[in-house]
């Protein structure tokens, strides 16, 4: 756990948050872990990698998955990647849908299970957004000295990618903005920018585009200033302790989703086209950015 903390951006306040979050998670897990491992239930972690606050959708998906796998399934929702990562590390979860950045962090503990296909391809980007009426900003450098909203310290598109862009332009991301803060979800980054709290924000392209369909009023108040290069889409991972049979079953289940009506309907609601097995090489771009920050 100590080395994880050292990898984090050096901010005392966030350190405090993360540390307390970890302690809380460890305490909780320690109490219940064994009892849950015994009942054959599949535990899947859901993160802000997608619009995870659509509760009816999650309910349907869980039921669909349980019916398909013929096993009880539990979805474990957490509002920050950090918490889900801790749960994975502690074998509290069997599978999880996490961001590509945490996936690389947890590479020793998890295996790549499947990669969602968004617009037919396992890729997405980071959008730099400002408020609709802010026409002065043309690129990241125009936001120097402003207030900036990040999604999550373990988000690629919502944290790593924009910082990498700043770094590439020769600035120190720690002092480039006057003030930054985390909203702990991509959706709330859009809200923070739309409300004027932050002058700019970095957001997951999949989420911004999906919002434009399911809740168009909110993203309509923002404007995409620039789009980053493509990165591997946030993957489904399995803990290395999950048996080969379970791994196969789950992977097949995901890959087969697009082949059934119920699966397609669920994918339609998720605004995804299906799943592919994917390869770790998809995430080389992220790994490169992490290396630039001395993290991998």
């Amino acid at each position, binding site marked *: 756990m100590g080395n994880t903390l050292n990898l984090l951006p050096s901010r005392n*306040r966030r350190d405090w948050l993360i540390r307390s979050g970890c302690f809380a998670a460890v305490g909780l897990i320690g109490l219940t872990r064994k009892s849950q491992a015994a009942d054959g239930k599949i535990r899947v972690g859901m993160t802000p990698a997608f619009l995870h606050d659509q509760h009816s959708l999650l309910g349907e998906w869980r039921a669909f998955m349980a019916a398909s796998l013929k096993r009880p399934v539990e979805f474990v929702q957490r509002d920050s990647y950090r918490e889900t990562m801790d749960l994975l590390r502690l074998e509290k979860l069997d599978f999880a849908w996490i961001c590509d950045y945490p996936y690389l962090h947890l590479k020793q503990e998890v295996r790549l299970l499947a990669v969602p296909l968004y617009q037919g391809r396992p890729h997405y980007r980071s959008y730099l957004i400002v408020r609709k009426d802010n026409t002065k900003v043309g690129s990241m450098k125009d936001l120097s000295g402003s207030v900036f909203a990040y999604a999550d310290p373990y988000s690629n598109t919502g944290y790593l990618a924009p910082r990498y862009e700043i770094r590439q332009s020769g600035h120190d991301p720690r002092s480039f903005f006057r003030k930054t*803060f985390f909203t702990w979800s991509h959706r709330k980054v859009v809200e923070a920018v739309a*409300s004027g709290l932050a002058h700019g924000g970095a957001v997951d392209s999949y989420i911004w585009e999906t919002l434009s369909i399911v809740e168009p009023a909110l993203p309509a108040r923002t404007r995409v200033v620039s789009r980053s290069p493509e990165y591997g889409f946030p993957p489904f991972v399995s803990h290395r302790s999950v048996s080969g049979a379970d791994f196969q079953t789950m992977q097949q289940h995901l890959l087969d989703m697009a082949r059934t009506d119920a699966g397609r309907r669920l994918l339609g609601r998720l605004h995804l086209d299906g799943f592919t097995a994917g390869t770790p090489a998809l995430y080389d771009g992220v790994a490169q950015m992490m290396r630039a920050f001395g993290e991998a």
Partner: protein
Amino acid sequence: MRWLFNLSFRHKIPLWTSFLISLSIFVVGAALMTRAYNDMKNAVVISADNLGHTLANTVAPTLLHDDVWRAFEIVRSPIRAESARTPVQVDAVVVLTRDNKVFVSSDPDALPMLTEAASLGSDWRRLGERLSVPGEQKWPLVLEPDDSSYLYLVLPIIDKDAQLGHLVLRYAKSVFHPWFIDTIWQGLGIGLLVLAVLIPINWYWGSRMATPLVDLAQRMGMMLEKPPEPLPPDLYPYHDELGQLFQAYDRMVLALRDKAALENEMVKSERLAAIGQLTAGIAHEINNPLAGLITAVDTLKLRQDLDPKARRHLELIDRGLMQIRDTVAALLVQTRVQARPLNQHDLEDIHTLIQPQVGARRIRLDWSAAMPAELPAPASLVRQILINLLLNAVQAAEEGGHVSLWLGRKDDSETCLTIVVRNDGTQLDDEQLARLFEPFASTRTGGHGLGLWVTYQIVTQLNGCISARNVDEQVEFVVNLPLGETPCSTASA
């Protein structure tokens, strides 16, 4: 302005009372409005205080951990849509850091984070000054700058014993103005309703009071031109000061009438007395030479050597002198004759004496004379009075008319003899009544006009009184004569 005070009470009372009612309603209304405004402000402050404490406690950890987004979610939570606004709806919530910079606000556009509070306008500068005053602050701090359209409430954000900053709640007065204007309209409506009820009552009451006063004033204004009339009894039948005033006026009117009647009577008496003196003087002056002339004519008539023509002239002169003597004798009323008491025979004589005239005019005569055998009244004078009055009545009555006599003592009075003679002839007008007892004032042809004059003289010299009036389509003469030294108590019957 003076014209206002010169207005008639008919207008002044309703105007003044209407003005006072309106003024009272306005003053009471204004007091209630002020109270309502203060109550509303208090409600806002109480609500703000509750909200402020909740927010301050919730927002404290976010300030401690620099969690801007969480803080934003907290301060934004009480903000509602424009349409859902009530006076107690908070307009903006701002978290200030210890150094009075905006940590986060519910309205990042107008109150962006990291801004110095002092640079947000005069309200915030003043607020910053208040917060930087050293020493104990009294929380919540309520700030309502005069020239501002906002009300501010400030609470400290405290974690354990460390003050992390301040929470500022801003309330738009423009939101409670429409609410307050609603209250004003409501109050105004009730006020107008009260006015609509009170003003007509007030006008009725005012005119009810003013009308008798106006009537009284008009009558008093006319008092010098003609005798005042008493007020109608139902004009104001109450016994307050106004009622007392009207009663006093009525008493005054009656007193004035009596006085006027008395003055008239006095003037008449004085005139008649003056005429009496004059005629008596003239009669004496005539009587003295007349006696000589009559003696001379009598002496001449005794002479035998007078030719028939001269004798005829002498007879003519003699008859003329006799007529002069009779006339003068009638004018010189002589009451100092030997007084024989009146008895019933005298009345019988008179009844007999007037029969020829009564018969000639076919008059119906009612005779009612109730008296003892004798009364201490001078018989010859009473006879003359009776004959004069009766003959006058017979002459005045219509042909075949009616004449009545009543003689006796009213209410068995021991001191007063009353004679009432009535006829059904032509009624007397005011002018005739005023000059009835003057000599030669006869109202009919053929009379010499001395009968009533002589009667008046006799009655006056006997300390009695005589009056005439029209009553029940008849003309009535009433004579009261004292039986002894005591004058009659009443002037008329």
